[in-house]
Structures are given as C-alpha cells and as structure tokens.
C-alpha cells in the first residue's frame, strides 16, 4: 500500500454509463488525494477489525463480507490512484469485459467442479474448451447455424471427456497426467486441422455469431443492466448452468450419489451405487458443460477459430475450481474475479495508467496464484478426488 503514498494530484473520473444506455448517469469525479487518503484509512480500520475477528472470533476466520468490502475498497483506491488526471475509467465497460472474459472460465470451472465432485480430476478443461471452440467453429460455419455449432461444442467437450474417463476410470491412468496429455493432444490436433483444413477453406471457419438479446426492462437497470442483461444466449446459459449445477449437486438424488462417489466410493458401492458408471456419466456431463464454454470463443467473442485461442483459460478455470472450494457458485464467483483481473489489465492499459504494462500483464496470474495459495488448507477437496476406484 506504500506505493500509493506517491502523490498524484488532480482528480479521478469514473464513467457510469455507456452512450447507448436508457438512463444516462453523469460521470463521477473525485479529488484524488483526498479520496485516496480517506479510503486508505478505511482499509486500515477494516484490517484491524479483521485482525480482531481472527483473535477473538469463535471460528478464527475473517468473515466473507469483510473480505469483500475490503477488496472493493482496495480496488476503488487503486483505480482512483491509477486514473488520476487521465481519461475517465469506464466502469460498465470494465464490468462487461470482465463478464465476457469470465464466461468461458465459469463454464470451464463448472466442468471442473462437476468432474471432481465425482472424484475425477479434470485437468483437461483446457482441452475441452479448445475442442469445443473448434467444433463450434467448424460445424457452425458449415451449417450457418450457431445453435448447431453450440451442439457440436457440447459433443466436442464430451468426446474429450470420454477419453479422459476411459483412461482414468477403466485403465486407472493417473488422472492429472492423462489430463495434461489430453490438453497437449487437443492443442496439437486443432493446430494441425487449423493449418491443413481451415486455412485452406476459410468458409469452414466463419460462423454467424449469436446475436445480443437484451432482456426487456432488466437491461435498462443502470450499470448492471447493460452488464448482465444485454448478452448472448451463451451468457444466459451460463447463469442457468451455475444455478442448475448447484441445484443438481446439492438438492437432488443424482447429486447426492455423485458426491458420495467422490467422497467415499467404497461406501457408495456398498449401498448399491455403481461407482464407475456414475463417474463416467458425470465426467461426460462435465465435458459437455466445458464444451459450451468453448463455443463462447467462436460463436460469441469472435466468429472464427484461431490456434490455441483458449490461451490457458482452462488452467485458470482449474484454479477457480480450487479457489471456489469445489462449489459451483463460489467457483463461478472466482471465475468472475479472474475475468475481472484480466480485463482490468487491458482497461488500465487503455486509459494510460502509470503502472508498467509488464506488471499489468502479470496481474491475472498473480491474482490467481495468491487466491489459490491463500486458500490451500482452508477449502477441502472431495476426499476421493483423483483416486481411481478398484473393486
């Protein structure tokens, strides 16, 4: 926090609406030095409160709301400082971009959560995303139907899952190793097909993207309306998927059995649950969900497939799984955080902040490492995660 001691005079401006919005909110401008000072004092107070919680509290943990308030204030402090005297910080743009970048991460992390809850470590999220993106691009272009492309992405994700499931469940290969190998395999395969087929025939690599479908009324809410409710069907599917995954895992018979298989497969076996079959189908579903995330790249973000276009998102999604404590909703929030970190970097670059760009490029990964490292030991993975079940 000492870095903020460097005096930056002038004022900082935050834009709160885009030009297309129904409600126009004037940008907010705050004096930089005063705001930074006030917020910094608030942060110190919060840190002291958190310390008291750890010392006195029955659980010895900092409550989540406190951490959240701290994080938001810290961010505000950082932005105020970084944006002093520059162009205004476009808050809606920052958030919209975050959600866009988070969408494949969240689908990927849901795929991870589902697979690992059943006891199969899903390191192949990257491969599932990439193959989903590729399948969606090819089939979507050939049929000119994005919905068919989406279906192809699901199939692509499931295919990768089946290879994972076959080796992990049937042949008891180490799940982390097979996951890594699958990622390499899918990368190589899609690179090859891209160079040999898609480059030669560009008609196979130009999809119709999903149109934006603003939801009436909801999309007119200031700030969050344009962020959450002027999206494509894939983003809406993501909202549904997060809720549905949570509901299915924790409220249904299927979910109870999946979790039993991931925690103590032998106990599940002794009450007549078919462990291997449950794991197989659960991993298939995980692949399908991750595949939808892949479709985001080629049916929503852009309209063509590019080499290695997922660019490590699968691994960040894996970090979101751990950061989210193998819980679908928390993993989705973690995905949002990582999406935000990535987008913050480009936004700060655009407004020309004084932070070196090399540091900004590191930002999402630094946040990922800190988030995951800070949580190790606190969250508990499913007890039989990654362990093959041998009858």
């Amino acid at each position, binding site marked *: 926090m000492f870095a903020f001691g460097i005096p930056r005079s002038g004022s900082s401006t935050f834009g709160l609406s885009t030009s297309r919005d129904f409600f126009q909110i004037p940008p907010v401008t705050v004096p930089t030095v005063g705001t930074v000072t006030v917020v910094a004092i608030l942060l110190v107070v919060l840190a002291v409160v958190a310390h008291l919680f750890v010392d006195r509290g029955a659980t010895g943990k900092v409550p989540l709301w406190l951490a959240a308030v701290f994080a938001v204030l810290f961010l505000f402090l950082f932005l105020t400082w970084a944006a002093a005297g520059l162009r205004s910080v476009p808050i809606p743009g920052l958030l919209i971009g975050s959600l866009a970048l988070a969408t494949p991460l969240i689908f990927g992390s849901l795929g991870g959560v589902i697979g690992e809850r059943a006891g199969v470590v899903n390191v192949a999220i990257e491969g599932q995303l990439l193959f989903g993106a590729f399948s969606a691009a090819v089939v979507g272009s050939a049929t000119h139907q994005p919905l068919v492309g989406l279906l192809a992405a699901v199939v692509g994700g499931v295919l990768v899952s089946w290879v994972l499931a076959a080796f992990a469940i049937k042949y008891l290969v180490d799940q982390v190793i097979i996951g890594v190998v699958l990622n390499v395999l899918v990368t190589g395969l899609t690179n090859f097909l891209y160079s040999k087929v898609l480059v030669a025939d560009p008609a196979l690599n130009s999809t119709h993207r999903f149109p934006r479908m603003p939801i009436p009324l909801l999309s007119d809410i200031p700030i969050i309306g344009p962020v959450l409710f002027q999206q494509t069907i894939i983003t809406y599917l993501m909202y549904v998927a997060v809720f549905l995954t949570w509901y299915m895992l924790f409220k249904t018979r299927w979910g*109870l059995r999946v979790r039993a298989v991931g925690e*103590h497969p032998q*106990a599940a*076996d002794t*009450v*007549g649950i*078919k462990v291997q079959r449950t794991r197989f189908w659960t991993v298939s579903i995980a692949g399908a969900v991750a595949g939808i995330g892949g479709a985001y790249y080629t049916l929503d973000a852009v309209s063509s497939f590019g080499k290695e276009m997922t660019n490590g998102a699968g691994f960040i999604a894996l970090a979101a799984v751990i950061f989210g404590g193998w819980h679908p909703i928390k993993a989705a929030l973690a995905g949002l955080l990582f999406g935000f970190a990535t987008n913050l970097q480009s936004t700060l670059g655009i407004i020309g902040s004084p932070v070196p760009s090399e540091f900004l490029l590191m930002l999402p990964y630094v946040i990922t490492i800190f988030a995951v490292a800070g949580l190790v030991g606190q969250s508990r993975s499913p007890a039989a995660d990654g362990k093959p079940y041998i*009858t």
Partner: protein
Amino acid sequence: MKLQLRGITKRFGALVANDHIDLTVGSGEIHALLGENGAGKSTLMNVLYGMYPADEGEVLLDDVIQHFTGPGDAMSAGIGMVHQHFMLIPVFTVAENVILGHEPTRAGGRLDLAAARAKVREISSRFGFDVDPDAVVEDLPVGVQQRVEIIKALSRDAKVLIFDEPTAVLTPQETDELMGIMRQLKAAGTSIVFITHKLREVREVADRITVIRLGKVVGDAPPTASNAELASMMVGRAVELMIEKDPERPGAEALVVEDLSVIDHNDQYVVSHVSFSVRAGEVLVIAGVQGNGQTELTEAIMGLQPRIEGKISLNGHELSGRSTHGVLDAGVGFVPEDRNEDGLIAEFTIAENLMLDRSSSAPFVRAGSLQLGVLQEFAEQKLTEFDIRAQGIDSLVGQLSGGNQQKVVLARELSRELRLLVAAQPTRGLDVGSIEFVHTRIIQARDAGIPVVVVSTELDEVVALADRIAVMFRGGIVGIVPGDTSRETLGLMMAGEVPAEAAA
C-alpha cells in the same frame, strides 16, 4: 429370515480364502463367526454381501437360492452389513448417509430430506438411539457412527444383519451397549452374524459359534465353551491366554515425562499436559480407545512430532528436542503402531530390515560399505532366536504373515542395548499364537530391567501386561492405576470418567 451358505469357495489366485464353507443362521439367532485375522471371515461375508462373486457354492435365504451381482442385490434381498471400517460419507449428515442409494425424492428428483429425517428419528426411537439426523457424521463419536450404520441397514428392512468386527473401535461400555442392541434386534426377529476374534464377546452374546481357521470351518461350539477351548479351536493348538509373569522388581525412575503436550498441524492439542514416569523393570501400559492421543504421545517420545511442549527425559538425560536418530541412539527401542507403514520396508529382505535403524555405523556398516557377512550371521541367529517362519533371511518381509513381520520388528528392536522399550499396539492384527510370543518377549525385556511403555487398546492385553496402567482420553491422562484394576473401572476411565479408586 433363515440364512444358509452352502459350500462357499473363494480363491484369490493360488490362495484359497474360503474352502467349502457351510453355515446356517436361523431366524432371530445371533451366530458368531470366530476366527483369527486372515482366517477368511471377512471374505466370506463379502461374498454373502455380493461384494465378491463366489467361485463355488450358493447363498440361500429362506431356502431360496440367491444370485447377487452386487451389494445392491444383497440389500434388496434383506441383508444388511455393519462394516468394520464404517461405510459412511464423513461430510454427509446422518440423514443423507442413511438414505444414500435408496433416496426418497419429490418431483424433479429433488431429495426429500424431511422424509429421511423422519425415518432416522423413527428407527432411533425404536431402539433408543440418540442420533440427530442433521449431525454431520465426521463430528460424531465412533460409537454413534456405528449406530448410524445400524440405522442405515435397518432403514432398508434388513432381516439378516452382519456385524464385521464391530467392537474393534469401541470402548468397553460402548461394547456392552452394542451387545444390548444386538439382543434387542434379535428379539425383534433379526438374524445376526457376528464376526469377531474376541472370545469374551462371543460367549456373552452368541447363540451359536462357528470357528473358522485358514478358510475352513473347524467346528461349532456352544456359547458355554470355555475361552481355552475356543482359543485352541481358533489356533489349532493349545495356547496360553494369560502369560505367566513374576511380580515386577522396579528400580529407579527411568523415563520421566513432565507436562508434555503435542500440537498438530491444525493447532489442536492432541496430547495435553501429560505427566508420568516409568521405572526400570516395569511395564506401564497406556490404555484407551484408539485415537485419544496415544499415537502422538509415542511419536513425541520418539522425536517424530514437530511441535511439542514440556519435557521428556530418560535416566536424567533430556530426550525432548532430539532427532529420532538421537532418541534411538539414546537406547530407545520402538515398535511402531503400523508395522507396514513405519516399522518395515516390505520390498526389503528380512536381513535388510533387521539393520534398518543401525545403518550408520558398526557393526553392519564400515567406511560406508555394508558388512554383508556380519549381517548374514546376525540375521540367521535372530531368525532362530525369534522363531521367524520364513524360507530364509533373504525372504522379502512383505511376503511374511503379520505375526512373523512383527517378530522381525521385535528382533530388530530387542537386539540392541536398550534403555527403554516403547511398543505401540504390538499385537494389533496378530493371531493368538503370535500374541503369546510377543507378550512373552515384552515381559522378558521387563525382567531384564528395561523400562517398558506399551500402548494398547485391547483390555485383554492391558490386563495381561501391565504393572501400572495410564488411561488416556482426549489427549489427557485420566488416571494412573495399578495393574490389577478391574475391567469395569478401566472401561469407565476409557470413557473419560474418573472413578473414586483411581482419583485417590
């Protein structure tokens, strides 16, 4: 329901685990299946429960031949099992564990947890169990977890209940309560198969006893049979159940433990403020139910626990703070609790295992080279002295039986010049014959003037070996009492109560 097993044979490769076993359990009967570890009792029950397919033979329920392809089939036929290692999901609630596999649901596959709770409450009240359906299983004491297992089986209307070594994890009081529950179940018409190797329990509760040895039925016995008769059937020869020992001739205080605490990686005190002393030539047995800090206590003495408070000294020399190597060099012999994990290297030969903790200096190592001749001579001698049944000193330890493995550990530890012997659960998983041998050796060490600390969870062993008994409960010592303290008192102490005579 009447259960019949006819000619059950189960092979694992060349090993015949069950050899044409016949067994009949009548309706409302408690039938004890008695046998040593490795006699094939659990295999037989896993066949009955559909976990393993039988190679030969058939299972009949009320004279109808059954074909089980998995535990699900066995359960729907009315067979329930209370497993030795509980088959409960630790992070699930009681209700969730009970319904797993036959979940009541509402529309859309939504779990009907209200119905599940009602079911748990109904069965608990029927048998007087006090089980909260919303408690998370891992937070419950083992005795209660076992009741959850029983509720789980009963919720599927089990007519035949198999109890696989149910008392291994229980305090004596909990064991008595379990016996009560078994009688209650029997009165309600449930047939019970009770698998155990503990003679006292069998005679207390069983209507009939079938003894199994080396995969074969060796005979039936009435519950009126004596311990000695049952033991000799189990082992195949006459055995001494209580070893003869002379009164102790204690010398000076040798091991002194003062205000010792052990803190685990979760910052919990797993051993808290424990003080005791052991004199030369006496056996102090640390009794208690598994998991009350005994393991951590012995590890603390051996320098295996990173965070300890307090002081441990041996003959006036400080032990606490030394490395494990330093503790061994101070003349401490250690028989670890889990011989496969900590005591032996399965892929090494007997000879190699015999020199494991003397691998840094003479006589077995000179100038960095193994003295194979010296080792061979030493190993041959120990093989005979400790009656280790193996093809030779080059046999791999992993291929030996549990009893012979433990003899290798003992041979190694007792052949050094000892100033203290620490033996944690020295007879766990051993057959009656090997137990006799191990006990004799421990008493010999005592009579040679070595102070001995034995950790045991088995009351029989506590009573057989102890000159004094320290009972541990939740990391603390409840009391230190003389070796002839009654089992009832010890049982109460294991549950954390301090009886008047112990408090004095």
